[in-house]
């Protein structure tokens, strides 16, 4: 079965190899079509097209300022919070096929269905429990039993439960940086998102905390569709099934991670992953 192979062909050379075919055969959670983005008059994304495979980790790599975070933040309309930003193209969210970035779509639609973890841990100035329960409270969940259950389940999935179960009502700021980031992951998981956006989730963490989070992403990939921005190519290679290489606001190469890292089609990708620039 082919899911909009044309869209894919626009970013990758027409000489599609087995990798591209593989990417299109997995069912899709979303399809990015000709996505462009402007900060005021400055265009930072240029007609990006790629599929987001369901139930897989897709990694976005590239040098600083290449637009990968900007790209990620289009998915939950974070750019709407600031004046003067403009989107072009479409991001189709499956299964209904709604266009996330259409001005007719309320930004709350994607935000209620898509979770996000930011680069810097950003817990609310509230207790650990209230942080995880936040998304449910926002959705109007009142039942104590439901809240308790979902808070525990999310903290367990974020591999934080054992460390915090005795102090759920302590301030989130009493946690270490790595714990805070796992708390933010738990907070994003609690409302059961269909898609999880991770914006360099380990860049502010030490190697041990990073390893924790990477393991966690691996476990979560069994259950969630994950889109992760990372600076760290080894990390992308370790945790993702598909990889998109960004450069100056364009997707230079997209394909299964293994192929992108071992047999890149583009020389620029080759240069980046071997550390010749970036």
């Amino acid at each position, binding site marked *: 079965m082919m899911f909009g192979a044309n869209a894919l062909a626009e970013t990758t050379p027409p000489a599609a190899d087995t990798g591209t075919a593989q990417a299109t055969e997995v069912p899709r959670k979303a399809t990015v079509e000709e996505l462009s983005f402007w900060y005021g008059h400055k265009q930072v994304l240029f007609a990006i097209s790629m599929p987001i495979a369901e139930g897989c980790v897709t990694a976005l790599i590239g040098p600083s300022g290449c637009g990968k975070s900007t790209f990620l933040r289009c998915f939950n309309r*974070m750019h709407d*919070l600031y004046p003067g930003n403009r989107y072009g193209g479409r991001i189709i969210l499956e299964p209904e096929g709604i266009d996330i970035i259409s001005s007719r779509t309320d930004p709350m639609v994607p935000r209620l269905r898509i*979770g996000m973890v930011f680069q810097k841990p*950003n817990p609310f100035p*509230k207790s650990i429990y209230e942080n995880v329960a936040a998304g449910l409270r*926002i959705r109007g969940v009142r039942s104590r039993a439901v809240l308790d259950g979902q808070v525990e389940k999310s903290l367990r999935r974020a591999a934080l439960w054992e460390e915090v179960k005795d102090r759920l009502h302590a*301030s989130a700021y009493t946690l270490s940086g790595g714990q805070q980031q796992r708390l933010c992951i738990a*907070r*994003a998981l609690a409302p059961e998102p269909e898609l999880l956006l991770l914006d360099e989730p380990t860049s502010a963490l030490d190697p041990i905390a990073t390893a924790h989070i990477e393991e966690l992403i691996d476990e979560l990939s069994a259950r969630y569709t994950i889109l992760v921005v990372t600076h760290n190519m080894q990390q992308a290679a370790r945790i993702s099934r598909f990889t998109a290489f960004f450069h100056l606001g364009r997707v230079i190469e997209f394909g299964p991670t293994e192929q992108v890292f071992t047999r890149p089609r583009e020389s620029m990708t080759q240069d980046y992953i071997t550390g010749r620039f970036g």
Partner: protein
Amino acid sequence: MAEMLVIDTHQRIAKARRRDLLFAGLGLVVLFLATAVLLTLILDLVVTGAPHIDWDFLTNYPSRRASRAGILPAWVGTSLVMLVTAALAIPIGIAAGLYLEEYAPRSWVTDVIEINITNLAGVPSIIYGLLALGVFVYLFRLGETILVAGMVLALLVLPVIIVATREALRSIPQEVREAAFALGADKWQTVSMYLLPAARPGILTGIIAALARAIGETAPLITIGALTFIAFLPPSPITSEPPFLSFDWLWSPFTVLPIQMFNWTSRPQAAFHELAAAAGVVLLVMTLAMNGLAIYIRYRTRRLMR
């Protein structure tokens, strides 16, 4: 050729230490001087006034004889006026600050409002008194009442609360807003669940500053026609018949502690000057009690915030 940069480490450190020591010493002296002056003033007031404070002083009406004069209408008046001021200025100030900081679109209208509010904070209080006299007393015919006094003081301190609210909201990291919106919160949820609680300490500080300024104001209240000699109390806010609450006191003439003090200090007899000091102590205690309450609330809400 690159020249080797040679630094005498010991000399460099010694210089840094001397400089720090000098500044710390200077700071200590200045701090001591300022505190000493303030303490002297307060101590003088307390020493002069405190012996006169007793039950009679708090429960008597003013009198021509210093030994029988009291401040009952004054402290009741001050309390009621502050109640009206707080009830008007706090919600309106917070709402205005919230709107300007979180809701208002960037436009020239917003800019004009902003410049006006900042300038209003610097307008002399007597100007507010004239405005209230013209608008509230003469135009709206609200009379020389507690309501008008509360309204004029609320106007006077509104900019302080608005500015404090905006500063408090602005100091909340943008990540908090992003986190809330990313979780699917709408604007009001973001504001009420995350921004206002985080801004509460800053807003409370602004409220303390505002009410402390209002409680000491004399000029605008004299301008609107507060009485300087009063021998009755406003109607009680609590009544014996349903609905048990009465707002008739809003329409009552009044006096306040600073006016009573002003009145007594302008008399020739020294005994009245001492009474003025005693009234000053009561005013100080009321201000401190108000601040204490705000600090307590701030402390309680701060426990979860780092």
